[in-house]
C-alpha cells in the first residue's frame, strides 16, 4: 500500500481531458440526445426552410431566406445541445452519481467545468451538422456570415448551458429533457426562431424581446441581416446568462451543502 505521505491531489481539481473523452462517448451512446441535438434541428430546417420561395428570396448581401432559417435552426440546435449538456447533472444526481463523485478528488467546480465543456462541444457539433446540411440544401450566406453566424450561434448558446445546469440542479428528474424540450420549443417560438418576431403582432413582439432566446437569435443572424438592435440583443443575452448562472450557482451551493 502506498504510504500516507506519498499521496497527492490531482491538478485542476480533477478537470481532465480523459474525463471529457469518456463523458462524450457516453453522451453519443444516448440515442435521445443525438436525435434531439443533431437530427431534429437539421430536420426542422429541411422541413421549413427549403421551399422554393425561401430559396429565391434574398436577404442581406448574397444570402437567402433559407440561409436565414438555417441560422435560426442552428441556434435552436445549439440551444438544445447545451441545455441537455447542462441538464445531465439532473440525471446524475438522480442516479446518485454526484454523490459517488464526491468520493473522488473531483472538485464540484471542476465537475461543472466538465459539464460546460461537454455542453459546448455538442453545441458546436450541432451547429456544424446543421450548417453542413444547409450548405447542400440551398442555404446561401456570404462567406463571412457562414463563419460569423456559426460562431455566434455557438458562443451565445452558453446562455442555455447555464440554463441547463440551473434546471439540472433544480429538477431532480430522470427525464429532465422531456420537460425542457417543450419549454425550449415555446421559448424558441417566443424568441423568434421559428417565426420572425415582427410577424407576431405588436404586443407579442414587445414581450418577445424580453425572452431568453430572442437575443441569441438576433445576434447570430446579425452578420447576415445587419438588422435590428444589436445592443439590446447583447443586453438580453448578458442578463439571461447572469440570471441562469446565478440560479445554477444558488442550487449548486445548496446541493453541495446538503449531500
Amino acid at each position, binding site marked *: 500500500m502506498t504510504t500516507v505521505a506519498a499521496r497527492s491531489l490531482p491538478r485542476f481539481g480533477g478537470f481532465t481531458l480523459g474525463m471529457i473523452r469518456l463523458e462524450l462517448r457516453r453522451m453519443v451512446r444516448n440515442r435521445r440526445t443525438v436525435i434531439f441535438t443533431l437530427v431534429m434541428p437539421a430536420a426542422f430546417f429541411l422541413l421549413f426552410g427549403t421551399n422554393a420561395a425561401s430559396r429565391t428570396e434574398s436577404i442581406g448581401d448574397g444570402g437567402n431566406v433559407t440561409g436565414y432559417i438555417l441560422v435560426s435552426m442552428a441556434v435552436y440546435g445549439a440551444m438544445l445541445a447545451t441545455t441537455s449538456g447542462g441538464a445531465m447533472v439532473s440525471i446524475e444526481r438522480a*442516479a446518485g452519481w454526484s454523490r459517488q463523485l464526491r468520493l473522488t478528488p473531483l472538485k464540484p467546480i471542476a465537475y461543472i467545468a466538465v459539464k460546460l465543456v461537454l455542453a459546448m462541444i455538442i453545441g458546436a457539433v450541432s451547429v456544424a451538422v446543421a450548417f453542413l446540411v444547409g450548405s447542400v440544401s440551398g442555404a446561401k450566406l456570404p462567406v463571412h456570415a457562414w463563419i460569423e453566424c456559426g460562431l455566434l450561434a455557438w458562443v451565445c448558446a452558453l446562455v442555455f448551458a447555464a440554463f441547463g445546469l440551473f434546471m439540472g440542479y433544480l429538477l431532480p428528474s430522470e427525464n429532465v429533457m422531456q420537460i425542457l424540450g417543450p419549454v425550449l420549443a415555446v421559448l424558441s417560438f417566443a424568441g423568434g426562431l421559428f417565426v420572425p418576431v415582427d410577424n407576431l403582432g405588436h404586443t407579442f413582439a414587445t414581450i418577445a424581446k424580453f425572452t431568453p432566446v430572442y437575443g441569441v437569435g438576433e445576434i447570430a443572424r446579425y452578420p447576415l441581416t445587419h438588422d435590428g438592435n444589436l445592443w439590446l440583443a447583447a443586453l438580453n443575452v448578458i442578463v439571461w446568462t447572469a440570471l441562469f448562472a446565478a440560479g445554477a450557482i444558488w442550487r449548486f451551493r445548496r446541493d453541495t451543502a446538503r449531500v
Partner: protein
Amino acid sequence: MTLTASPGTTGRDTADLAVDLDGVVKRYGTVTAVDGINLSIRPGEVVALLGPNGAGKTTTVDMLLGLAQPTEGTVRVYGRKPHNAVALGLVSAVMQTGGLLKDYTVEETVKLTAVLFGKPPSVVGEALERAGIADIGKRLVGKCSGGQQQRLRFAMALLPDPELLILDEPTTGMDVGGRHDFWQAIRRDAAGGRTVIFATHYLEEADAYADRVVFVRRGQIVADGTASQVKALASGRTVRATLPGAVASELESIAGVDTAEIRGDTVYLHGRDTDDIARYLLNSTAARDLEITSRNLEEAFLTLTADDAGGSR
C-alpha cells in the same frame, strides 16, 4: 449493558489512528441520528458496525466519508478531515445502492475513476481482475446484476488503493451466492492489511468477517469488542441451577466456566462445555433444577440492541 473491550481507546494518539470519532453527534432537525459516538480504530483492523436499521450506521459512515458534517464533535480519518482523506484516496467506500451510471460500461466506469484519481490506465484491468469482473468489462452497467454492480463499486473503491475501505451494507439485495463471492473478494483484499469498516445488519457477516464488532443502537455504541469476545459473549450456553450459598469466585474456578452470575439462590454459569459444568455441579455440589440454554449471536444482538424498558438512557 455495555461490553467494552475496545482495543485502541487507550493511549489515544489521533495521528496513529485510522479512524477517530470524538463525541460525535449528528442531528437532522429534531431527529438525532448519532448521539455521542466515541470510536477509535487502528490501522489494519476489520471492524463491523452492527445494528438494526435506523441505528445510525449509515450516518456514521457518511460522516467518515465527509458526505455529512457532524453537528457536534470531531471526525478524523488518518488524522485528517474526512473530506481531505477522501480526496487523497486514503479512504474509499462501497455504498449500498446507486452511485453508478447505466449508460457507462463496467470498464469505462472504472476508467473514469482511475482518471479522477490520476492513476495510469494500467490499473483499470487490475482493479477489474481483483473484483472478479474482468469478463464483463464491456457490459453496460444498466445490464449488470445487483451483485455485479456491487463488485463494480468494489473495483472503484479499490482504485485509489485506500488505507481504509468502508462498506455500507455491502450485500443488501444480493443472493447467497453473490454475497459469498463478494465477501471472498473482500477477504482476499483485507489479507493485505487494509483497514476495513463495514456496516451491516447481517449477524453472520459481522461474525465471519470482522475481528472487532461495534454494536450501535439509537445512535450510540452499546457494545464494542473483538470478534472472539463477542463470540464468547454470544455463543456457548448457560447452565442455570439452584444453588443456595454459592460463592462467585468458586463458581468461576469450575473448569469450563467463562462467567458466573449469582441472583439469589440461582446461579448462571456461562461457558462452552456446558456438559462438563453440569456434570461437576451435579456430582460435586448441592445444585439442583439444572437447565441448559443456548445463546447465539442473534440473541446477543437482540439483547444489546433492543429497547430496554426504562433502560439505560
